[in-house]
């Protein structure tokens, strides 16, 4: 999935904090915002019933006669959920959007695993087709790579419904990177809202092909939906293509506005994007920190 050169570029990257809360129940390299059980001292506080007696600072009790408990900083892990749209519409573009999306998912997985974060992979079209729960370790990475190498674009899209279904089985905190072209006439944002409601932080990666951004056909054409086989006849001229672009811009703008309003990462990539550009886009969106 990744070449040696690409891996070298990824070695210096980690997931940014953003507003994503790391999972404190998992021991990781990331400092949790809550107290935990690491060896790193954080603070003293009055004893409360139920505190571990081993954490009582006996020296303070001996000197002052007050029960004071030691608190330690927790070592947290970031749970990264990579949701890859494998509907038929992802087969468009040169290279196709799915392979680019799979590349992105792979690099996200690699960066996460290397930073000892937990990463999971979910593929979906109208429903969730494959799911690897977030986990750490190289075996998880290899599982993810193996799964990504086998994905095939098929089926219809139901992005909002798939996100809601995923919300039912997963809860936050965690970063949910949704990679899709987001061509769904139904309400996609509802799925993001549901993810947020479950404590998950969505990151939106909209992947489009060059043809979708700039249609090349002209004249009397019949357009066939790759997923539904619905057709539209039209005269593709400057006016109609301009109208299409306006609609596409509105689609993208609605996603961007949602992400901006919720301080969520938002990336817009083309399927022909180079690896370096892809990393730069991720970095500029706040997904990664560090220099590739």
């Amino acid at each position, binding site marked *: 999935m990744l070449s040696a050169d690409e891996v070298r570029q990824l070695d210096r990257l980690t997931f940014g904090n953003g507003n994503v809360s790391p999972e404190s129940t998992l021991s990781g390299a990331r400092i949790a915002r809550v107290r935990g059980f690491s060896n790193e001292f954080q603070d003293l506080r009055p004893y409360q019933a139920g505190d571990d007696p081993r954490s009582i600072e006996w020296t303070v009790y001996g000197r002052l006669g007050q029960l004071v408990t030691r608190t330690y900083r927790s070592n947290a892990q970031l749970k990264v959920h990579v949701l890859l749209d494998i509907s038929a*519409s*992802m087969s*468009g573009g040169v290279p196709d959007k799915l392979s680019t999306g799979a590349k992105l998912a792979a690099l996200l997985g690699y960066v996460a695993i290397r930073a000892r974060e937990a990463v999971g992979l979910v593929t979906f079209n109208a429903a969730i087709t494959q799911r690897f729960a977030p986990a750490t370790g190289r075996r998880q990475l290899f599982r993810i790579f193996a799964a990504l190498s086998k994905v095939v674009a098929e089926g219809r899209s139901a992005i909002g419904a798939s996100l809601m279904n995923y919300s039912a089985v997963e809860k936050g905190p965690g970063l949910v990177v949704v990679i899709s*072209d987001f*061509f769904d*006439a139904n309400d996609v944002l509802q799925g993001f809202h549901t993810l947020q409601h479950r404590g998950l932080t969505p990151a939106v990666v909209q992947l489009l*092909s060059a043809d*979708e951004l700039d249609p090349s*056909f002209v*004249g*009397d*054409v*019949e*357009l*066939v*939906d*790759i*997923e*539904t086989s*619905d*057709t*539209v*006849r*039209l*005269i593709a*001229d400057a*006016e*109609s*293509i301009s*109208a*299409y672009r*306006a*609609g*596409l811009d509105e*689609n993208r703008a609605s996603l961007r506005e949602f992400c901006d309003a919720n301080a969520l990462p938002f990336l817009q990539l083309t399927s022909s994007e180079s690896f370096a550009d892809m990393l730069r886009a991720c970095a500029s969106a706040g997904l990664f920190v560090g220099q590739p």
Partner: protein
Amino acid sequence: MSLRNPAALWLLLLVLVPLLLSRSKPRVRHVVSNVYLWREAVRRAGGRVAPRRVRLTWLVLVQMTCLGAMVFSLAGPVVSLEGGLTVFVFDVSASMAARDGGATRLDAARARARSIVRALPRFARVRLILATASPRQAGQWAASDPLLLAAIDALAPTAGTADVTGAMELAVGSGDVDNIIVFGDTDVAIVESGRDSPAVQIVRVGSVAENAAVTRVAVRERELGGRAGQALVTLRNYGSTLRAADVEVSVDGRIVHRQHVQLLPAVSQTLNVELPDVGHFVTARLVGNDALSLDDLRSVGVPLANAIRVALLGPRGSFLERALEVNPSVSLRTYGPDGTLQEIASTEDFDVVVCDRCRDSDAEIPSLVITRGGGEPIHDVLRVVSTDHPLADALESGKQIATAGSSTATADRADVVLRVGSAPAVTASERDGQRRVDIHLDLTEPDFVVSAAFPLLVANAVGWLAAQYTMPSEVIAGEPLAFRLATTAANMVRVLGPDGSSRDVRRTGGLFIVADTEAAGQYRIHVDGSERLVAVNPNVEAESNLSAAQGASFNRTGNATVSVRAPISVARWLVLLSVGLLAMEWRIRLHGA
């Protein structure tokens, strides 16, 4: 061209299917990730959906033609390039003028004919034959030719009868006929016989109707040379109810008598009308309203009462001369026995020449020739051997003794009217339209010549000889008007019909014939500046009885429906065409147009 299954033409709508399918197929198909944005774009662009324009490519054209050929073959098209020949035989007899409701029988026949013409194939030919007393062809047209309908509309009833059988035989004999359709009020009995006869269809028009007619008009002068006379008018009611009507008798167009009559059904009634002056043309008219007005008028020409101009060549003071002199209808001129008939005929017009033992007995005018006969004289009883001959009129057989030659030779084809023993005594002959009477008796013997029978024989002979130049006073419509003239050239004879138009006059020797007498009325015969009037009257015997149809019979085989000869089915060719087009379509598809 006609179709056996016209309903299949509805399937021609299928021809539009390839066109519609080609409309629904755009030129370029593009697979896109979504169409909802494009739908929105179309909506934004003001509904600029690609128009469903027709893309009539070669492929579509071939497909449409293939489908059209297949569907058209299902309709069963048949063509008859020769079109078939249908003969319309129209009964145009007087009875076809009878009113039947608001129209005449001929009108009804015309209407039926028009509907049949419309049903005939376009290329069918229609020949029109008029069933008159002498059937004749009126022409031949294509069924689609408007002149055919014009000719049918122009048909008019004649005053004569109709020889329907003759007309049908004329139709059969006039060419390769497929159908014969007879329009008329005559019941035609079709007798099955023979093979390859055309189909015959009888279109019977008319129904039973009340009718009365003037069946006879005769005029006679009371005395020779006088003008007063008597008209005999016979009326007949052919209907089944009592008929009251007025009868008008007019002389030369002037009404001289009017009388009210009650006509009993199926009974003839005769009126005697005294005429102070018989004039030249007497007409009787039945005033009233019945089904057929054509037979309510009947006329007769009054014959000229001129004396018979007779020239006698022979010794003066003979019994023969005396027999001629006592005849009041004879104007006699006598010549010596040395003259010849040719000389006399060239000097003056005579109706009859009497040659009593003269040298030359051959003349171009009717002649009575007296010879003694050859051989030993025979004295014997005079016997009438041809009692029906006009010469024997009022003569009694076996009452008189006469003297004739025992070995008298007779002319070829001469009728022996009287004999003395076995020898011919009086013969009558007619050769090349020329009449001649030979009396082979010895008129010097005081036996037969002193009896009352001799002037009777001479009067009969002169009357028979002169009668050939008598102009007929009336003719039945449809029958030829024939008359003899002595020496007049044909171009000096002119006959005008009742409509004032000239009729064609044919001459055979001294016989003149006018064949076209289908219109009833007054015919004027102009001869050398003089005029004779002849009445042509309707054929009441055959046409006036509208309560019973006349009958005719005709031999034929085949069905009685109109058919078109040897229709050629185009269906198989259309199927072949469609298969060929299908192959072409495949080739276009495989290799590109």
